[in-house]
């Protein structure tokens, strides 16, 4: 072998080594950025828990907001959040699932369907505060619902509708054709096929979508501020159940309210550091709830994926 080829070979080896090095460097960089972002989330959560730690206790959950930071609690906030979510689920679930079934199973391929699909895609990208303006103009003033639980629930329902529709459609789509065809072959109608076969198989996916939608709704602040929800509410809405006939009352729907993220925003925007501790505690609870719901959604998806073998 001549000296010249030896030199060329060494050059080649050096070049290959350099390129392999860039491979490894990139892997390092990728992992670094990935874990840095995940670390941010961990740091945020730990810090909220640490800062808000002194406020965790029974009192925090059973006290109304107060001018005295140490005595202020989130009673009206968490009750409000629960009631608003109740309205949101009651509205978004049936409408979202029905819309998805229509688009996936029934819709003919025509311009009406195309318009609906474009609208769903578009709505998913509309900033949440715009929904707040819609609610302010439509629910609060034109429909005269006022700054009530039902107005907030409807707003959040519209907001998460695209999420529910998209998730449900994906779940429906993942049911194989063979199942539908087998049912049709036995003489089932389209509705029977959908209700008895396709829907049960997609429960997991639909539930996942609903939980993710709710976890989004629970943390939404901007649209609720826009409809003008008060931040200082030191009373509870009317109880939905009562001891006297007719036992169930719906007056709470029209009651003023506050929710967790609003309460937190109210505390964050006060200059007094004592309130920042409350904000951290409320934030830890809010973030914990969001993470929990997302965890449940991932778990449900995983379980159903394992359980069903086509």
């Amino acid at each position: 072998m001549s000296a010249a080829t030896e030199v060329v070979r060494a050059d080649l080896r050096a070049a290959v080594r350099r390129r392999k090095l860039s491979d490894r460097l990139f892997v390092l960089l990728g992992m670094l950025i990935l874990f840095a972002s995940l670390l941010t989330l961990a740091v945020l959560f730990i810090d909220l828990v640490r800062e808000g730690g002194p406020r965790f206790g029974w009192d925090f959950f059973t006290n109304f907001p107060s001018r005295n930071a140490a005595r202020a609690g989130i009673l009206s906030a968490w009750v409000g959040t629960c009631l608003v979510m109740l309205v949101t689920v009651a509205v978004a679930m049936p409408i979202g699932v029905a819309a998805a079934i229509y688009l996936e199973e029934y819709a003919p391929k025509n311009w009406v369907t195309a318009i609906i699909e474009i609208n769903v895609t578009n709505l998913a990208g509309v900033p949440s505060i715009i929904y707040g303006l819609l609610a302010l103009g439509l629910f609060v003033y034109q429909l005269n619902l006022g700054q009530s639980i039902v107005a907030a629930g409807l707003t959040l329902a519209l907001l998460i509708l695209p999420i529910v529709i998209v998730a449900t459609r994906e779940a429906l789509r993942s049911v194989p054709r063979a199942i539908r065809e087998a049912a049709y072959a036995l003489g089932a109608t389209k509705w029977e096929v959908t209700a008895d076969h396709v829907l049960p198989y997609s429960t997991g996916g639909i539930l996942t979508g609903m939980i993710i939608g709710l976890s989004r709704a629970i943390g939404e602040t901007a649209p609720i501020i826009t409809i003008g929800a008060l931040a200082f509410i030191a009373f509870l809405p009317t109880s939905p159940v009562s001891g006297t006939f007719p036992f169930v009352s719906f007056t709470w729907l029209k009651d003023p309210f506050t929710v967790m993220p609003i309460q937190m925003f109210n505390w964050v925007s006060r200059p007094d550091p004592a309130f920042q501790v409350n904000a951290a505690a409320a934030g830890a609870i809010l973030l914990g709830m969001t993470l929990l719901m997302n965890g449940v959604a991932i778990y449900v998806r995983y379980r159903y994926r394992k359980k069903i073998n086509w």
Partner: protein
Amino acid sequence: MLLAALVAVFTTVAIVYILVSESLPFFHQVSLHDFFTDTMWTPMFDQPRFGIMPLVAGTIVTTMVALCLAIPCGTIIAIYLSEFAPYRLREVVKPALELLGAVPTVVYGYFALQMVTPFLQKFIPGLPGFNMLSPGLVIGIMIIPYVASVSEDAMRAVPNYMREGSYAMGATRFQTATRVVVPGALSGIAAAYILGISRAVGETMVVAVAAGLQPNLTWNPLESAATITAFIVQVSLGDLPHGSIGYQSIFAAGLVLMVTTLVFNIAGFVLTRRFREVY
């Protein structure tokens, strides 16, 4: 069921109708020329001025800061997950990354105000408590998963034979990723960026909490300012009578916001469609 599906159409129509009908009286009083050229936005003063520019500038600055963080990080994560990461890791990391986008925005606001700003103040002496840099960075963190997952989808859509062709020519993974996969997925990656912009523009609570609420015509991220979204929040916090000019001004601001995000969303939508059709 058709009715349920039509709710989506109804919502869009209602949004447009409400925004336009509520801001029409506003534009009767304020000319479009003033609206876009006046440099002061003071709807609550005795002598109100209605120039949207300070709010637009605030929005552009925070969005730019967010993109400076989210685009490089999001793209690198996407390339890493789609081309380098082992299958197992990807299955675990992707849902975890999505959590970053699921954090309630008001919590991110607290994060920006109470943690990021004090941290930045150690490096940038004289940084005011309210500034646009810190919320911009936090919005960037928030949209990283969004940019990463849309661009990863685009890269995954590049067919495997293109990668194999590149490997067969002796290219390394990094070369294949940067010279074959990324150019092949370019329209999808562009869509990811554009959708990310639209998210950043519409983000509300982080800036409302941490950027201050004073409209301020500046391009310096170290100063405090208000964005379009933050202004809407600020006005909503007060008790404005229905029909007053202040009340109408939030719908005018909302209309500007809606049109901006709509343009970005449509551009993103067209681009994602294109990358799906190429292969």
